[in-house]
């Protein structure tokens, strides 16, 4: 398949590259009479058009959709932003009781509650980004069938809104760190990089899953189960040290491991496990590219099947 992009450009951009024969015709006195930016819509048979220009031309819409998701979520809620703290906090408390107290798992340099909360924070961000992006594409079917815009912004806005939740829930993380006396180290500056990796991975996975779900509706039944499976397969509430030697290769298959371990290393000021992080970074970039490609390949049929 060809990888041609459409020539869409926004108004604020430089004049579109119109064919030379038409440029001589620019003898009009009014901007409204000049022919605007050129868009070429090719047939389905001509392959996937990546339309990267559209992403730029419509960039403000990404902001509006993210803003809408946040607004709508916090309107008419009893406790508003508290919910995004309560969810990981409650899970952390039960995990602290079962794994920290009863099973006495050794969580390394971070005290178990802080260890678990930091993991749950990133996990909740990742999984809700993928999940709400997927549901949001189907629930916005009225938009998809009535107006053109880069639909990838719908799952992207879900991840963007998740970043705001993450920021709010991080307040408790700071509180826990202060309570346990985990000091500030220069490595803390690395923490946002791991959040960024998690965002890229969530975006890639979100685009992939949401696009496939529009085409194959029953995939949405598989999503909660897959997410639960993925959480248990990742060191969210348990440390990687409990994985026996013969199974450690599994850690390199799961791109979330490097993100979680790297994030915690940044918090604790311990050495960052770079090989794992490299796997995560590579996987996030690949997920983003594959996710966008698959999304674009299916996007043009959304209006016909949604």
């Amino acid at each position, binding site marked *: 398949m060809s990888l041609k992009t459409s020539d869409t450009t926004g108004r604020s951009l430089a004049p579109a590259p119109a064919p030379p024969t038409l440029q001589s015709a620019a003898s009009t006195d009014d901007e409204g009479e000049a022919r605007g930016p*050129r868009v*070429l819509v090719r*047939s389905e048979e001509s392959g996937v058009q990546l339309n990267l220009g559209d992403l730029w031309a419509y960039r403000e819409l990404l902001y509006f959709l993210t803003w809408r998701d946040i607004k709508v979520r916090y*309107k008419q809620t009893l406790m508003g932003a508290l919910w995004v703290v309560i969810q990981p906090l409650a899970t952390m408390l039960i995990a602290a009781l079962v794994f920290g107290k009863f099973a006495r798992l050794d969580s390394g340099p971070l005290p178990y509650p802080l260890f678990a909360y930091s993991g749950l924070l990133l996990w909740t961000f990742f999984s809700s980004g993928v999940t709400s992006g997927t549901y949001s594409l189907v629930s916005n079917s009225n938009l*998809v069938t*009535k107006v053109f815009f880069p639909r990838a912004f719908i799952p992207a806005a879900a991840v963007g809104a998740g970043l705001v939740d993450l920021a709010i829930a991080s307040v408790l993380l700071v509180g826990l760190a202060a309570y346990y006396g985990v000091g500030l180290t220069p490595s803390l500056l690395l923490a946002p990089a791991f959040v960024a990796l998690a965002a890229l991975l969530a975006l890639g996975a979100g685009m992939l899953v949401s696009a496939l779900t529009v085409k194959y*509706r029953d995939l949405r039944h598989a999503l909660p189960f897959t997410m639960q499976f993925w959480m248990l397969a990742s060191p969210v509430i348990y440390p990687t040290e409990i994985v026996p030697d013969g199974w450690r290769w599994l850690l390199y298959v799961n791109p979330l491991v490097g993100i979680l371990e790297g994030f915690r290393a940044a918090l604790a000021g311990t050495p960052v496990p770079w090989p794992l992080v490299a796997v995560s970074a590579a996987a996030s970039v690949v997920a983003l590219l594959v996710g966008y490609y698959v999304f674009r390949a299916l996007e043009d049929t959304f209006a*016909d099947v949604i």
Partner: protein
Amino acid sequence: MTDNRMKPVVRIENVGKRYRIGALHPGYLTFRELVGGALAAPWRRLRRAGEDARTFWALRGVNLQVRQGELVGIIGHNGAGKSTLLKILSRITRPTTGEVEIFGRVGSLLEVGTGFHPDLTGRENVYLSGAILGMRRAEIARKFDEIVAFSELEKFIDTTVKFYSSGMYVRLAFSVAAHLEPEILIMDEVLAVGDAAFQQKCLDKMREVRRAGRTVFFVSHNLPAVTRLCRRVVLLERGQVVADGEPQEVVNRYLSAGWRTGALREWGGADAPGDAAARLRSVRVRDEAGETAAALDIRRPFRIEVSFDVLESGRVPVAVVELANEEGTVVFGTRETGGEWRGRGRPAGRYTSAVTIPGNLLAEGSLVAHVSLVSHAPAAALHAHAPNAVAFQVVDRAGGDYEGPLPGVVRPLLEWATRLDAGGG
């Protein structure tokens, strides 16, 4: 000679759109079907990619060139491909064959209130909907006061729109749309549903847009409006352009071809008009005896039955029926206003609403019913719109109860009384 007005701003070349009509889930496959189908009969899947009975061409071999400043009316019967053409022009879906070249920003208004969210305030929705329709933030901010003034909703602009009446909702939504200034405007007649004042505003806006030198595509069944507004009309029939030219000529050709729809209209799966909340299933004209009938005695009452599925429990979708005559003039509109389901949230399921139209009311001639499903709570929504859903003839077989023909779009049998006031002695 090198004026831009002579160059096409929209070039549609050999455009075709093929849809699949499946049996069980016409629109989409389930993953199980995909896997199961692939395992069971790989060759069948391969063959399905090509031509077969399960596909149809909504558009085929369409060629059009439109110059700047043209206001092009697109008419045709239901299913002729008008909506598909609009969707391709507005880039909502891609053509199966051919290509479309467009110079300029395209604004498409295929429904009122695209992008409105019931939980946001009027102010927030102006920004959101404006951005979704393609406006920039700075542009919306600049026009904001004007948009609000046009809607006459200054007092309520910070109220959540779910508390708006349906009229307020439509006013605000239209006012956002009216301030969109694309080089190419694509408008569906769905926009023109609503009261007469609203329709007038809509048509005035289109004139204004044309005066500003913009290009407009206007799809409508409102033939008088098309004839008045457009200098060029394109008639689509079964996915092909069969006439393109002077409005009166094209409109006449359309009328003479007849309505091409009968007294019963049924929709299969995904092509049924509707949304996630409600979907039309069938519309039927029944005579007094309960038989499906396309020719009705002018003196006898008859019924129009609308069957629809409520997919989202708790919504209150009601059927709206508009009867229009051959000129496209709406004789009247009616919607369910009473009965045991009035205002009650409806559990998901199949409903049939029937309206009885009395005898001795309609004038003789052929009529067509446009059927929609709307709800007013929690938010005003147009779930489905089926223009030209069914057509029928009102026939005056035996001079009726009248003596000879009468003018007018209705022909009610009214009570007259005459008395002798002064005798001649």
